[in-house]
């Protein structure tokens, strides 16, 4: 069960720990031992992936909470009016033709992701990278769906700058 998901769990742990491999390994080990301890809670083997990521996310959150107060973690979440205002302020992206090659982006995106606050980073990893639905991600990190939506929007807004900057630079280069 674990073997099939180990790579995905490792890379998620690695990014949750901002690329620190030793921390990621500790996190993964802690999560796996918790999974072994709580195996009886897994009712449906087909849900193993989601279950393992839930344990990984919760273990990471518990570690963060041990480092700082919860109030500090959630203080940045937007209330509904602020979220709607932010949605309305969205400036359209350039056309897809202006996008830079994917291969050039990996490292920059990784750095940008590492620079996001942990609560934003985890939803991007779960939803955008690992393909979980926002409902699933909400269950994994233990917040309402609306909060996941708000965090995902804010994260994408910050990451978009990274995704667009190389294209803008490339365009400038072409015109010079």
């Amino acid at each position, binding site marked *: 069960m674990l073997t099939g998901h180990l790579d995905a769990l490792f890379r998620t742990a690695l990014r949750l720990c901002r690329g620190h491999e030793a921390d990621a390994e500790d996190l993964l080990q802690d999560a796996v031992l918790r999974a072994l301890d709580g195996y009886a809670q897994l009712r449906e083997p087909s849900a193993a992936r989601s279950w393992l990521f839930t344990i990984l996310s919760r273990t990471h959150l518990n570690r963060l909470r041990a480092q700082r107060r919860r109030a500090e973690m959630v203080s940045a979440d937007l209330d509904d009016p602020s979220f709607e205002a932010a949605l309305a302020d969205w400036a359209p992206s350039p056309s897809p033709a202006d996008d830079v090659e994917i291969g050039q982006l990996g490292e920059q995106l990784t750095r940008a992701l590492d620079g996001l606050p942990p609560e934003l980073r985890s939803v991007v990893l779960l*939803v955008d990278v690992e393909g979980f639905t926002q*409902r699933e991600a909400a269950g994994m990190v233990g917040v309402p769906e609306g909060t996941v939506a708000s965090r995902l929007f804010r994260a994408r807004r910050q990451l978009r700058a990274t995704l667009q900057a190389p294209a803008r630079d490339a365009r400038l280069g072409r015109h010079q």
Partner: protein
Amino acid sequence: MLACGRARRLLWPDTGPREATAEIVAAREHVSRCPACQRFLDDMRRLSERIREAMPRPEAPVEVRDRLFKVIARARTDGARGTGPRHRLWAAGLAAVLLVGGAWLGLSITPERGTPSRDPLGAIAEDHLRTQRHTGLASSDSLETARWLADRLPFAVEIPIFPEAQLKGARLVFVNRQSGAVVDYVIAGRSLSYYLLPAIEGETGTTAREIRLASRAGYRVAAWEDAGFTHALVAGLPGQKLVELAHYCIKQMTAAVAAWATPPRLPAPALLDPRIVLGPENPGTRRDFHL
């Protein structure tokens, strides 16, 4: 008319079919007439795709897998030793994990009663995980190791000698209802196991001496077949290193077999039990001993 922010809030994220309330219907009407909102929804979809495509997807390094599975094996051993309810729960949970893991790998945990595994490499890798609890011979002497195995198996085992590897001993393994040999080494601080098992035709999918590299249960397995036997090296080492060791092993076996195939020119065998002679059914490839 609905504001853009409210319409976007109602329709994003798209969580699948939902009840068409008056507000949702209004939001859809708004978006159908609002290019900015259409662009917003398109941007969200496209950004998600771009992030998914651009994010590097590294595999867990072999070293990490190695350490993780050792931790699991240790937890399993500790759980089995426990007597309290918590320990029993641990043991039950771990057994269930192993059963599910075994099913995923396509192997049987109870090979005595089960049908032959469809994935012998998976079974081999699983056995490698159990080495901490094995009872066998602890020896760094290849002659003693060869004799110990010869006393217990219906075929002889050539003990490979690898550069930089230290022989630790041998044990027996039971995979797919057949007994086999395992020779254990330590190389660069990591455990390395050499398996020799009677082959089940067509199971490993290799032709003679074609090395197949696979990952099972967090370990690399390099396997090949030769003269009706499956040979495998299992370790938490990089695949390339394991393949190098496999080539070294094959070369060593070939040299040994060539030497045995021309007995008049050979010096007296130093490593083998005197009862061991060249097997008539596989001349030049394997020595069988007569009881």
